[in-house]
């Protein structure tokens, strides 16, 4: 890696980091480096000043507290993958963690860095959207909570301010009859998604869908929700037909572009397929029994 020269700062507390962000000229935050370092290597990013947050031990956590699953800024993808908290209850987390990049990248890259990167092909944004997640940011004026829905603006662009540091992303702990799942289509290990869909369903006592969320990867300018499909699901009982209709709606709502991952028509169709698969798994994890009826 032959980057352009830059100044390297290593704060050990959040306060120190925030004051560096405020006082330095055009600082760039470095966490796992799995997006930033490739950009430095290609000289697509040429920051003069880098604030490396890897020394802020207080940001290295992944736990449940006060009704939230909280993921600190230094929790790596691999920490999620290996965590005993992450099982069927957090189905979409359990699905996504081993599907992000490859083991080497997962050992360094962070969930928060991934959200901050706001790559529409990134997987975590869809999970956050499907779980009504929040982004916690610290800046010179203190702490701010940004709903995931309001966070992503454009590819690589968010509502975060240059002087702000994300300390945490969090999602509410799952309801008793909740299930979630993530399905990702990729060409090989380490490849970004051709398309991905996160689904979350909350059922009431009559097995009726109370809340439905669908977050989509790589098929729009940001990670995006499929709100028409969600509305269609809510108030209904899960069935193949319902999920087929929801898959179709999600596909219509998606806006993929043709590229080396396939043409737009194919990607729309895959949104349909992946949404149906993810909804099926989510329903199962919410407590229903799923059966294949032929073959």
């Amino acid at each position, binding site marked *: 890696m032959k980057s352009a020269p830059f100044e390297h700062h290593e704060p050990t507390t959040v306060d120190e980091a925030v004051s560096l962000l405020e006082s330095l000229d055009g600082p760039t935050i470095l966490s796992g480096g799995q997006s930033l370092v490739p950009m430095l290597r290609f000289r697509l990013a040429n920051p003069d000043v880098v604030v490396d947050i890897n020394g802020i031990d207080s940001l290295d956590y992944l736990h449940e507290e006060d009704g939230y699953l909280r993921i600190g800024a230094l929790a790596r993808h691999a920490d999620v993958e290996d965590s005993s908290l992450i099982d069927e209850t957090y189905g979409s987390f359990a699905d996504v963690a081993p599907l992000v990049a490859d083991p080497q990248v997962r050992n360094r890259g962070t969930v928060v860095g991934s959200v901050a990167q706001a790559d529409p092909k990134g997987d975590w944004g869809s999970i956050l959207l499907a779980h009504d997640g929040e982004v916690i940011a610290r800046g010179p004026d203190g702490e701010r909570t940004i709903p995931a829905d309001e966070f992503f603006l454009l590819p690589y662009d968010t509502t975060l301010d240059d002087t702000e540091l994300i300390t945490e992303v969090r999602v509410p702990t799952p309801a008793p009859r909740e299930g979630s799942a993530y399905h990702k289509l990729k060409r*090989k290990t380490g490849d970004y998604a051709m398309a991905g869909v996160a689904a979350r369903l909350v059922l009431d006592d009559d097995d009726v869908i109370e809340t439905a969320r669908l977050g989509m990867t790589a098929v729009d300018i940001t990670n995006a929700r499929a709100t028409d499909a969600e509305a269609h699901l809510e108030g209904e009982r899960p069935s193949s037909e319902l999920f087929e209709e929801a898959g179709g709606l999600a596909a219509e709502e998606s806006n993929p572009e043709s590229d080396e991952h396939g043409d737009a028509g194919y990607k729309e169709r895959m949104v349909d397929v992946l949404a149906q698969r993810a909804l099926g798994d989510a329903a199962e994890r919410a407590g229903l029994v799923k059966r294949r009826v032929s073959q």
Partner: protein
Amino acid sequence: MSSDHENAPEADTEYQHAEDDGPQPEKHCGHGRGGMGEEVSRKEDKRFITGRGNYVDDIKKPDMLHCEIVRSPHAHARVKDIDGSRAEAMDDVVAVLTAEDLLEHDLATMPTLMDDTQDVLVNEKVKFQSQEVAAVIATDRYTAKDGAEKVEVDYEVLDPVVDAQDALDAEAPLIRDELDDQEDNHIFDWETGDKDATEAVFDAADVTIEEDMNYQRLHPAPIETCGAVADWDPGMDKMTVHMTSQAPHAHRTLFSQVSGIPEHKVRIVSPDVGGGFGNKVPIYPGYVVAAAASFVLEQPVKWVEERSENIQSTGFARDYDMTGELAATEDGVIEGVKVDVLANHGAYNAAAQPTKFPAGFFNIFTGSYDIEAAYGSLTAAFTNTAPGGVAYRCSFRVTEAVYLIERLVNVLADELDVDPAEIRRRNFIPSDAFPYESATGWNYDSGDYEKALDKALEMADYEHYREEQQRRIENDADKLLGIGISSFTEIVGAGPGEQCDIAGIEMFDSADIRVNPTGNAVLRIGVQTQGQGHETTFAQIVAEELGMDVDNISVEHGDTDTEPYGLGTYGSRSTPVAGAATAVAARKVRDKAKSIAANELEAAEEDIEWDRESGEFHVAGAPDRSITITEIAAGAYMNHPGGEEPGLEATNYYDPPEMTYPFGSYIVVVEVDRETGEVDFEKFVAVDDCGNRINPMIIEGQIHGGLAQGIATAMLEEVTYDDNGNVTGGDFMNYLLPTANEIPNFDTGHTVTPSPHHPIGAKGVGESPTVGSPPAIVNAVVDAMNHAGVSHVEMPMTPDVVWAALDDAGLAHKPAQNVEFEFDGASGSADD
């Protein structure tokens, strides 16, 4: 292709072991000393595994400078001005070099291995994106890169042409306008076989089939990129270049020709090389620039490519657009084959292959089949893309030929509704027909194709999968099953020198064995390993032929100051050529050892016999009166027979009488997901025949690696360009290499059909799996959809490509159809 060769040694048949997979006969045939057939652990692995390898980028010299190359962002552009002043003004930048500086030293251009002339640094016009435009030399590599960013180049952007067909259009921009006699982008036309006879066969045939297929542009992508450390020594007037070279001697000759430095004052060292696959056969501008800079600055200069520079500017592979046709009887007996190819050679003709064969060994498109008439025609074109064409374990275009014929045979089988295994059986060259001359005039040494196929069918449980395939079609299952076969024949081991040369140098190879007074030996060879395991395999040949322990033989390669001249390692030629040289040299040593044995044992030389089993020499009829090679070695130096030279050594330069023709049958079973187009491997059987096997474990490793590359070819890899000539597949985020997750388990097997003309009956094997597997994989995927009329799917078969074929054939599925949910309690179940 055949030639009479007087000095071709007879194959030594003494250790032609059992012809099946049993480990037993193999383990024993090396006599426990690590000779032929033993699974000796690789001698080179200790240093690789413990991180003690010595690659070009590990080499550091005092006062060493670093070189960074400024590359063109455009594919086709005139360079109007280069301003290096901002870079030169930087503290640690030592020099900025452009074509103008090189012209002063007559180093502005270099010959390609196909006799074209390539700019070292662009003189007037850029011809492909990432072409070398200027070089910055600095005291460290970071500054060199910073400096490169400050070099300002003023380009006049021209229209590029990327596609070979477009390039041949009369209106297309002329790429090579610096060449006097070049009026268009056409490079050459080539023909092989008998056109009239082939047309006649096609006219009279019961059935003909035709298929268009593209063999996409690939890159060998060795883990180590290319690089060099050039060190001009003004005291010795000597240029030493450590470089990533698959052919150090040939590169020395070329370096000398380009630079004017006499050849004995040029030393090329190819240290540990992290994979070549043909990518490190050509000469690249970076090597020349490093050498020129060292010469001018009188300091060592290091140049090491970045990954994307490697993919975007160095020798690519394939890029053949092919149309193939077969003519057959209604019983499926193939009578004729026709092929027409459009080859994209990039901006320079730099394909690095034997001069006499502009299309390499593509001639082998008749494959494993006894075909009466064949005709092939090929046109090559310049385009605004990086030069290359021959690389990536392909034996000079055999890969494309094998893909073509193995696909066509399947298309014919589909047309006639004959099982693809059966149609191959009906057309194989019979095992008693060897040596066999093909319709394109090539002389196959030996083969038993049916045996390899039968073995593969058995290992694959072929009938079971055929039944399962049918069952799934009938049940309209979500996952279709496809079974693909490829029964390929390769042609490897160039020379003979009469027919094969690289830049005029005949493609022989060499070995030099020196036995020391204490009984161990050093073998020096003209080929060079980039991972193939030469240091082990070649030592085993010597161990076998001299009765020595393999641990007592070290193998040296890659240094032109000490090794005998050789043509290098590529095209699976090391064992066929340098392996033969090693066996012949060892036998010369053995002959001399006999006379020393006679002296030591006080017997007549005629009475001395060598016993392969014990590895000892003894007096005929008196096995007790014996002597080992260790004792003989001592005798050669301490008690040498009067009238003879002291010492115990021999050299052989081996010009092979023929090439060798390894073959095999691969069977691949895949599952195709009708919802997404994803392909999963269910079973992968590879039966190879490379003649006598020196180290089965190393062969197995070569097969595994090559199959992985075959899978990569069929499923993932492609160097893509946009219409402006921008490389869009130029890094590992976009040029997709498989990981272990993408590679299934392999069931490997083998048969043994020795080469009759090779001294140890061996054939090359390094490329077989890469050559043989892509058609098996494509055949399998097509086979899954063939019942609905799919006859071809282009590589790489990414999910979207496969899904499009499913969709066209009406086979695509949606998921919901087959799932039901059960609800508990009051609310009842979904069925009510």
